[in-house]
């Protein structure tokens, strides 16, 4: 078990934790904007960690450069989608739900 494999395992497991947290967050949040924020975690943070782990394992070969190109493409294009969804929801007057604290007593 060289240093390369240990680093890869660390980065990949951190990335998987990000994906699991994002999936749980989409199911359990009550508000629309909170769910959207949870879904956006996996496509930016999870992608960076997983891609770094795989890139460390491959080194600077052709496969490594292809992994970097795929990461660049997804990283540029998928926050655009999240931005569109949030903007359309805001323009259609989807309200943010605030917690009612006065009836908790």
């Amino acid at each position, binding site marked *: 078990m060289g240093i390369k494999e240990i680093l890869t395992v660390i980065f990949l497991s951190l990335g998987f934790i990000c994906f699991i947290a994002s999936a749980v967050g989409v199911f359990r949040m009550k508000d629309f904007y909170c769910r959207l924020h949870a879904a956006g975690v996996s496509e930016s943070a999870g992608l960076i960690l997983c891609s770094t782990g795989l890139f460390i394992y491959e080194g600077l070969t052709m496969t490594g450069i292809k992994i970097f190109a795929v990461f660049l*493409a997804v990283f*540029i*294009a998928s926050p*655009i989608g999240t*931005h*569109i969804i949030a*903007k359309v929801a805001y323009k259609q007057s989807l309200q943010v739900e605030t917690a009612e604290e006065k009836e908790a007593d």
Partner: protein
Amino acid sequence: MKKSNSNKKLAAGLIAIIILVGASALKIGSFLPVIGAQDTPANSYLSEYYISHAVEDTASHNIVTAVLADYRGFDTLFETCVLFLSGITAVMILSTKKKISHDKTIRTINDNSEHIFSSNIMDAAFRIVVPIILIYGIYVLIHGEISLGGGFQAGALLACAYLLDRIIPSFQMRVKHITDEIALITAGTGALFYVITGILPMLNGGNFLEFNKLPFGSGAGDIAGLHSTGILMIEIGVTLCVMGIIITILEVVLERTDFDD
């Protein structure tokens, strides 16, 4: 009363036609061999021949493209014709509705408009994404013989770039607005290019779509160059047809409807 009577007769006639066609299809289909049987040509000797002789016969490393465009080029010609037919059908069904003239200023947004998608971030983002998709589409078309791809995928990718630019309006028109007539003509031109590629070997003393006798080719006339040129011309024809059809169906629907939101 009269109208309901004639409607009932029409419905009864249609049901009779459907039952007739369905029964005859089942009867004719029982002559075909069972799927997965061992004595059909596809399972016994044809697949072995294709897999073992594809690279040296057609000089392309992608066996799927070799079978689709070289060994079975005749079937691909009629697949392209069926695609073209679907576009014509879509135009024919929707041609009775009138075209709604959308205001030209909706497409180009002024500085203080209330359109949903207008923002600076979207404009900058799409300036990056759309040229990359176009370049990738041309790459997939030209590299169809070596890696994944081919004609169908390239045509769909190019149409996808146009779709992206059509649905999300921007601060200025970047891609020229393609009307449905021009898109249909493009699709027809693609199919015509395919057939011309088939007729060219016949002028030189060969059969229809026989690439060994193409009059011109790359690489001083050896077999690999001729096959490569023939496959490339076929893929260009298929790409033009698929791109034209997807844009046609999109424009035919978008120009005749008035969205309420």
